[in-house]
């Protein structure tokens, strides 16, 4: 349904997404994980045809077999009306502060589905219910600033689901939610995907949420998709050195005696776009870097049931290369 080949996105400052390649079929549930600033939201916006004007996209992006790269706003608007929907990362910026949230959620149903006011209202209330918004009738009449952060996030989820999309792009949909509500939302999205064959692109830094929501994961670093594999295997045995660092630095419950210790991190930071190495984006921070990593883009290779973009071969990446994990403390 969505086919991406050699997709890159450039800003004046540099390249935010490089040579992305993947396909999403109806009913697929795909996770996207990676460090802050690695290009997850930019990739998502490109699939929605919603990149800012300052962005330049190249490569191929096919939706239902139709090439969308370079197509006009009307074509995109048509797709977004019925087929594609997105849960945006920052709820406050995506909701109109001057409108009651109920009106906001009803609007696309009225415009795109042609529902009557009463039907739209019924459907919106049902969505509020399903996303676990307490006292839906009352919330319906409130303004965004009168809701808690987690309630606003759920309004946004209801809005994205308003027109029964075939593809849902969810950018950090559970970030502001406590464990119970987050689980409820994940369960809802998975169920919708199964029941209606809805494809789900699930962007999150919460690896346990990704584990529950998806069957396949793409790990991004510095604009590159560095590893793609089935969720179960990737979260147990990641191959790419960055993916390993990511798993090694997961937060855990810490008893008091450890509380004064600093948490493990991947040393350094993602360089700004203009300073990204032209070869492997992770070079400079990689504990097993080779001489040519910085200059040469790594090949994409099959590894197990996924693909990895790394100059190292199976030997180093397979198994339990403890030295890689040890580097991240």
């Amino acid at each position, binding site marked *: 349904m969505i086919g991406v080949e050699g997709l890159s996105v450039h800003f004046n400052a540099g390249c935010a997404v490089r040579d992305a390649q993947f396909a999403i079929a109806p009913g697929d549930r795909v996770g996207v994980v990676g460090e802050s*600033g690695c290009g997850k*939201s930019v990739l998502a916006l490109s699939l929605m045809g919603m990149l800012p004007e300052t962005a330049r996209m190249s490569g191929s992006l096919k939706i239902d077999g139709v090439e969308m790269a370079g197509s006009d706003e009307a074509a995109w608007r048509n797709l977004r009306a019925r087929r594609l929907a997105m849960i945006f990362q920052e709820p406050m910026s995506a909701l109109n502060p001057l409108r009651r949230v109920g009106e906001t959620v009803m609007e696309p149903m009225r415009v795109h589905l042609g529902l009557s006011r009463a039907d739209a209202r019924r459907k919106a209330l049902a969505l509020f219910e399903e996303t676990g918004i307490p006292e839906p009738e009352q919330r319906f*009449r409130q303004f965004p600033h009168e809701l*808690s*952060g987690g309630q606003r996030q759920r309004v946004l989820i209801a809005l994205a689901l308003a027109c029964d999309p075939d593809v849902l792009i969810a950018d950090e949909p559970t*970030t502001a939610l406590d464990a119970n509500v987050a689980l409820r939302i994940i369960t809802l999205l998975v169920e919708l995907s199964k029941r209606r064959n809805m494809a789900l692109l699930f962007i999150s830094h919460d690896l346990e949420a990704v584990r529950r929501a998806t069957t396949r994961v793409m790990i991004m670093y510095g604009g590159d998709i560095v590893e793609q594999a089935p969720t179960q295997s990737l979260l147990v045995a990641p191959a790419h050195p960055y993916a390993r660092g990511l798993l090694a630095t997961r937060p855990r*419950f810490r008893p008091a005696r450890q509380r004064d210790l600093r948490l493990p991190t991947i040393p350094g930071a993602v360089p*700004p776009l203009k300073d990204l190495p032209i070869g492997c984006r992770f070079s400079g921070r990689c504990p097993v870097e080779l001489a040519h990593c910085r200059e040469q883009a790594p090949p994409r290779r099959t590894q197990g049931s996924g693909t990895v973009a790394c100059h190292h071969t199976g030997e180093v990446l397979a198994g339990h290369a403890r030295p890689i994990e040890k580097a991240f403390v």
Partner: protein
Amino acid sequence: MPALLQLDRVTRRYALPRRSLLRAPAPLTAVSNVSLTLARGETLGVVGESGSGKSTLARLAMGFERPDEGAVCFDGKDLARLSKPELKALRPRFQMVFQDPYGSLDPRRRVGWSVAEPLRVLRREEPAVIESQVNAVLERVGLRVEDARKYPHEFSGGQRQRIAIARGIVTSPDLLIADEAVSALDVSVQAQILNLLMDLRDDMGLGLFFISHDLQVVSSISDRIVVLRQGEIVDDGPTDDVMFRSRNAYTRSLMAAAGWRAARDGQSAATDR
């Protein structure tokens, strides 16, 4: 010495929208009879499910909203009794990072301007001094000096959240109220920011009022934890007591609910010792 922050039986109610013309609905009590203290250099974790009143408590503690009942004292001063200019003069000493970073950054202003704003309130520093402080604080949160010249929309969500944190610590405040301040960050950057907050606490005695729904994150940084439920504190104690041996049924249900989020060790990381 007075406590850094003291809340004394604080209650906050909100009016709800009318459904009929005849009768206004009973107001919603978002925070109910909450008392707590926070000492210098201490980290107080605040947990509770969505809608339990955490952000409302934060706004009250900052003096952005007045409580309907009770008092909020910062460094012994009752915020409700301060004049606007007095409150403004005190502001650099207690700062807040908001749950929604977009809301706290002016989209038409360069990031450097927004980060420097709490400093300018002081009206003491030379522009060059302000600039160097802004640069230093941007680097501490993992951003670059040149980022000061960009606009908020040129950043990713997590980068914007770090800009908001930079703004919160630029005055070296005595108290930082952090409302879900690290929740949009990936684990490694999140750990870097938590480490930074711990450094500020240890080096400068920063008091932290740390709100998060992520119990692992809270447990990794807090000395004490309070549990909020429907606006009331239902449990309170040293972190380990609340996290691991609470007798409170609600706290235990929160912990149990969080269980699925806890990192599982299919592969035990090198850091697990």
